[in-house]
């Protein structure tokens, strides 16, 4: 039962952390719960669909279907996070100001929310499809005793609860600094997802690894430990990345930073001073 709980917990936590960041990064925007909720619901439907066609997906594209689907989902999420980051660098200061002035959610239209709803959808789709397959296996093999299924349910609840805790932690950040912090979280999250995508593309044999061994910090922090896994999802921590993963990580960091500077609202005192 604990084994089942642990697997489902890990998958749920990954999705829940991404949802926590999406909800945090859209703080103060009216209607965000509805959008992110719709993203979760659509992601669950998609997860069932992907799990149901696992065999067809795996056999597609010369046996590279699964890797390419994963990489595409991850890179689409990176694109959406970039869009969000750029939007926030143009509107975040104004949003924070209005939020402080009126003290309740601000209507800004759907645009900033579409990106985050899609990020949520993609995260739930990816992690959810594995969970669905795992639970399906339990049921189909007849080993799905009530204990195991209860373990699965426990895993979902625990993963969601930890995600919620991270979200509450984000909200504790003072509003003046809030969007700066969530902005960086969005960038680091995106960089980590891009590095994961690079992993799938090398697994498919479509990208060179560049360097199989860069470094190994598993002695310091094992990526498969709870903290290691948490940091893996949040900031892309990898205890032994390949060269191409490092390249994808740094390129994403640089591209998102550069784009958001390019579109930043002029006249920000700190930014002006930094120039």
């Amino acid at each position: 039962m604990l084994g089942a709980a642990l697997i489902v917990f890990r998958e749920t936590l990954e999705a829940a952390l991404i949802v926590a960041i999406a909800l945090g990064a859209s703080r103060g925007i009216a209607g965000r719960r509805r959008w992110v909720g719709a993203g979760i619901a659509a992601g669950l439907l998609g997860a069932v669909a992907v799990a149901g066609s696992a065999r067809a997906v795996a056999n597609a594209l010369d046996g590279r279907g699964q890797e390419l689907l994963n990489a595409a989902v991850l890179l689409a999420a990176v694109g959406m996070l970039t869009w969000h980051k750029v939007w926030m660098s143009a509107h975040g200061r104004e949003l924070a100001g209005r939020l402080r002035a009126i003290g309740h959610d601000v209507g800004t239209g759907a645009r900033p929310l579409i990106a985050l709803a899609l990020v949520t959808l993609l995260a739930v789709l990816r992690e959810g499809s594995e969970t669905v397959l795992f639970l399906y296996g339990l049921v189909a093999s007849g080993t799905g005793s009530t204990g195991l299924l209860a373990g699965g349910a426990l895993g979902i609840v625990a993963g969601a609860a930890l995600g919620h805790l991270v979200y509450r932690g984000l909200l504790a950040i003072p509003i003046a600094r809030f969007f700066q912090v969530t902005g960086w979280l969005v960038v680091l999250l995106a960089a980590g997802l891009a590095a994961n995508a690079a992993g799938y593309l090398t697994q498919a044999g479509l990208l060179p690894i560049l360097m199989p061994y860069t470094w190994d910090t598993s002695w310091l922090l094992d990526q498969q430990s709870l903290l290691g896994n948490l940091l893996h999802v949040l900031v892309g921590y990898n205890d032994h990345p390949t060269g191409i993963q490092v390249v994808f990580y740094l390129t994403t960091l640089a591209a998102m930073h550069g784009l958001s500077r390019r579109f930043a609202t002029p006249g920000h005192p700190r930014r002006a001073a930094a120039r």
Partner: protein
Amino acid sequence: MSHRISRLALVLATPLLLPAVVHGADYRITVKNHHFVPAELTIPADQKVELTIENQDATPEEFESHDLHVEKIVAGGSSVTIRLGPLAAGTYRFVGEFHEDTAKGMLIAR
């Protein structure tokens, strides 16, 4: 700015532009009753290897190896191919994530 976007687009499109990779030698591991057979397999180091995982169980399994950077679902009663390497000589552990207590194994590259 448009530079940055087009450069990013190029980076993202790179995998699509690369030709299919040359096929390496073939190895096979079977999943049966949530165990890997063989549980230990020796493969050549420093060259590309194609590893086929055949799942003879009716239920799905996920071949996962943190050491190898591989994570791949194998539907019940089907096979997948994993492209590995070139690997440095050494031991690489893997598990079937959905039945981790029984499905364990290692690749030995030498």
